[in-house]
């Protein structure tokens, strides 16, 4: 059996794997709100800053 069959089969399986991941993501509502997460991810940095500031002021 030629290696090409194996390779293509694997590549299709991998592709299907990603496709299933996509469907799951849609199903759990990840794509329902595509704006808020883009803002939310910027907050974490600010929070650490706020902690640092507080420490400074305590000193």
């Amino acid at each position: 059996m030629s290696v090409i069959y194996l390779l293509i089969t694997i590549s299709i399986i991998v592709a299907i794997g990603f496709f299933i991941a996509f469907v799951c993501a849609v199903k759990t509502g990840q794509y329902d709100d595509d704006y808020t997460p883009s803002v939310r991810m910027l907050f974490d940095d600010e929070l650490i800053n706020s902690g640092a500031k507080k420490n400074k002021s305590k000193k």
Partner: protein
Amino acid sequence: MDTQNCFHCGLDIVKADEIVFDSKSFCCAGCKTVYEIFSTNDLTFYYDFEKSPGATPQNNIDKYDFLDNESIASKLLEFQESSTAIISLNIPHIHCSSCIWILENLQRLEKGISTSQVNFPEKKVRITFNPEVVSIKSIVNLLSSIGYEPHISLENYETGKTTIDRSLTYKLGVAFFCFGNVMLLSFPEYFEVKEYWLDQYRGFFRWLIFALSLPSFFYSASGYYVSAYKSITSKMLNIDIPIALGIVVMFIRSAVDIIMDYGSGFFDSLTGLIFFMLLGKMFQIKTYSFLSFERDFKSYFPIAITKINPDSSEESIAIYELQKGDRVLIRNQELIPVDGVLISGKAEIDYSFVTGEAVPISKQSGDKLFAGGKQLGKPIEMEVLKSVSQSYLTQLWSNAIFQKEVTQNHKTITDSISRYFTPILLLIAFAGFGYWIFIDTTTAFNVFTAVLIVACPCALALTAPFTFGNILRILGKQKFYLKNALVIEQLAKVDTIVFDKTGTITTNKKSSISFEGTSLTDENLVLIKMVLRASNHPLSRMLYDNLSLTVIKNTGADFTNEVGIDAFEEITGKGIRAIVFGNKIEIGSASFVDKAPEESKQQTSVHVKINDVYLGKFLFHTQYRDGLAVLFKNLSKQYQLQVLSGDNDGERANLEQLLPKGTELFFNQKPEEKLEYIKTLQEQGKNVMMVGDGLNDAGALAQSNVGISISENVNVFSPACDAILDASEFDKLSYFLTLSHNAMRTIKMSFVLSLLYNVVGLLFAITGNLLPLVAAIIMPLSTITIVSFVTIMSNYYAGKKNN
């Protein structure tokens, strides 16, 4: 006087009211309190993301008492268990990243809340909390106290699980998956090299392609078969017929090719076609999830109301449970949900929800109150005459126009083209078949299928979605929100525009006021202003704001000093009586100052009497929106204009002067009459656009071909309509209409373009030369040209008059 802006809410600070806290200035105690809450909880980062993001909190502690009622509260919950509950609240104020940040850090303010998540486009916050620690009422009160008052209305009462239709996303995902893999696998076939390696694996590749195209063909494209079938049964030829026909023929021919080993088939083009067309569909659907175009009275009505039991105890009950004879208590700013009779207290009812008229109407005990009014001032008691479903306002909704499902009888431009397209296409296919059948049977079948394949009007079908989708976005950026893409087509067809008066062409934010009578001395003006300052009546506020401009400059007097007021009495429905620096001042209605009411002009006026001497009256003139005259002048060139007003004709002369000749004016129109009027126009064959604002226009908006609702604040309320226009963009209406015309022109131009592609493709097909490779080139090429053409054109037209 240089104006400073409030650190919290960004409004101008009136110098006298300024509160300085933590070396920051605030416009009122409310804003300061919010800042205090945030700073003590280490949440001042709120102010770092956005400048002055806040809103002044509304102090209305009693307002949410009904949430104590277990059965009402539980209706609002999404999920409930002993120690976990989830509630979704709609908060109209959500507008910036600061809002998201503070609302997602609610757990730092309230221990009972475990997490909260904001959905920005929908302006909703989803809070997970522990009902044993914190109640819904305290969460709602907490949100109100930091300026994020949730909007809870009757609409929330039946919050079933709303299922979102995600099938288009799945279909698109499947189509893209198949398209990508099929393209990859068919690549070797494009180079017709006689090579051992290619020959060896050709069968394997082809069968794999065949298998991969199955989900795309059977699942992703299924919508087109259904639509085509429906259109055949209803005998209306729409664009989906040639599409479905093309897809099916393409699939069968390709399957035959592969099974019989004739060639590689057209699966690459097939999956590509399905993918692009679904993409167009997706692009066209631009929803403004924070807006609702289907609102009815439910979103205006409170969910519960305070009922007074015979033993004079108070209780919150759901308004659906109200029965005839019940006594209810309406507090300040509460909406009257049912028709009834006023029992105690004098009421000042603001009917602006129903009529659009901002000036409240005073009612005496024993007067009838209609649902939809809002009480201003002291709490009143009323007896229920009719249950909610039978009340005046609700009855309006039982009119047939609201009952029937909105059927789109409207034929889209694409469908009307395809009415000619489909028969011609079939004719060409059969002609080609008829010609070749005498020469070569195999070629005849090939030609027949090739014609149907290549003529598959995918470019044609893509034109409208991409143009409309793009225009929809352009308009959305300019604060003109359309319900869907069809509205653009209907806008372009409009020939008659009907305007409502109050709240639509007039603004209730500003009002120009003039004085009639003995001219007032500056001293008197200062006295009047001092008195007005203490009053909360809308007219007092309006007058107070208006007087400030002239008085302060002239005298520089300190009218904000309250020391001088010795006595102050506000008589609801009549006026104010006060003694200031020993001067007796009376401000109010004509009867209040013992003056015979004038019959001639029914204009809103406030009469002034100082030290028992009648001085004159302030007249409130309706203020028309900026650019109204210019807008009407522009529109009158192309459209027939009409104004329907629920008011009396006091403004007729004024309007006739302002508006171009030929504008028809109608006054004293009841909501039903407005609806009937639109219907009559439509029966005359007119395409009517209705521009309105209040609930009184709701019927007319629904009846008209295009109903546009003008809203001062698009996040808050608007009746059911096809489009919502931000009031500040009112003068752009004629630009929007021109743009819709240009959109249609763009579509027609690109129809010509895509037909040219079809002709070229057909030439290949009819001569029997359509190779899979040619199809694979022509189809994406036409798609790309069409999409870029319409995008460029619609952007060009949008920028044309909007520099």
